[in-house]
């Protein structure tokens, strides 16, 4: 068989979305999953060592080629586009959803101290936030969570890669955790 590393590299390049390990395994059924994972790690290390314009990144549970972050402004020049950036308020709302999910609007509002309906709508439209379900309390409020696109946009492998909240630890509040919610 040809070089496995080369095959995997080709698969990642040819994919429009981050390729998950399982999908590579489907293409290469005769190769052990652990071996594929190992090859992926090697490949990532190679790209890192080379320190070129391309990075092999783990995002949203898969693997994807991305340009090196330091080179961003060059690529932007090429594309000539200005990315639609989120307002401070939208970022705060998104951060609360990301860390507190599954979360309902009233919880977000009690943290931010202001109405967030408009901001949530914007985040839903941008597909960074999604409706996860409805909470089983009076009024059946909508439960929000982040999307896969959120992970892709913020270059996150998964939610556990979010840095831990610093000051919340100091609070040590028992009511910290809201009731566990079903549906994810």
């Amino acid at each position, binding site marked *: 068989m040809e070089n496995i590393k080369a095959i995997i590299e080709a698969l990642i390049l040819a994919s429009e979305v981050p390729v998950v390990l399982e999908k590579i395994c489907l293409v290469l059924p005769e190769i052990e999953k652990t071996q594929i994972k190992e090859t992926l790690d090697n490949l990532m290390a190679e790209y890192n060592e080379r320190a070129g314009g391309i990075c092999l990144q783990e995002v949203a549970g898969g693997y994807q080629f*991305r340009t090196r*972050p330091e080179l961003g402004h060059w690529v932007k020049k090429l594309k000539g586009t200005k990315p639609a950036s989120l307002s401070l308020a939208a*970022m705060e709302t998104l951060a*609360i959803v990301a860390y507190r999910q599954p979360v309902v609007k009233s919880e977000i509002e009690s*943290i931010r101290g*202001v109405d967030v309906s408009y901001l949530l709508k914007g985040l839903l*439209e941008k597909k960074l936030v999604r409706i996860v379900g409805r909470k089983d309390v009076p009024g059946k409020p909508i439960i929000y969570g982040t999307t896969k696109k959120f992970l892709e946009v913020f*270059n996150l492998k998964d939610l556990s890669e979010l840095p831990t*909240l610093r000051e919340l630890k100091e*609070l040590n509040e028992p009511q910290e955790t809201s009731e566990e919610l079903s549906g994810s």
Partner: protein
Amino acid sequence: MFMNEEQTTDYAIKLDIFEGPLDLLLYLIKKNEIDIYNIPVALITEQYLQYLKMIKSLNLDLAGEYLVMASTLIHIKSRMLLPEPEEPEEEEEDPRAELVRQLLEYKAFKEAAANLSQRPILERDVFTRAAFLPEEIEKLPPGEEELIEVSIFELIEAFHRLVTRIDRKELLEIDLEKMSVTDIINDILERLSNEKNLTFEELLGERKERWRVIYTFLALLELIKLKMVKAYQTSAFGVIRIFPAVES
């Protein structure tokens, strides 16, 4: 009164950057180099109310939340003024505790948001190969494929795509034909009873005048709201198909 002189300078510039009452409080705490665990409530309340006055005098819309916070501050201030009981029966909580908790929590998320913004963000700092998004995925016979319920946003996007495509063809249009959304609703229902499902474009048929597209879209939204039809697609960016909802 004692802080008036130094206060007046930075009002105007700072006003619009506050994200809410908690943000304003954090700003005041930072500005006065106050220990967040030991807030001098009288001082902060006074400065806070001055800001509110400023906002009002500028005729800016004041969110109700700012006033709620003002009353909370005044309430805390008054509680702090009460003499402490000689023998506290049970350990009384500092009247500021809840506010401090809220401030710390908000501050933590503010920082988390700042951290998120500093990550290598897609299309800002990092780029992937441009994804190829086919304008319309081939028509698939429904039934064999897994169907995904279409979200309202996708429906609106589909509508938008259609309208922009039509607008390219006809820029000027004068139409005197009269039809109501109700007529179109009836028309859609009738056609759906004959055929199992229809795409949005098929619903329009050959007559793609702008008003008809808009009316059809409105009719569709109404029907979906009334749960008389359902919109499905087989994949993201796929063709949206309208199915009659099974009546019980």
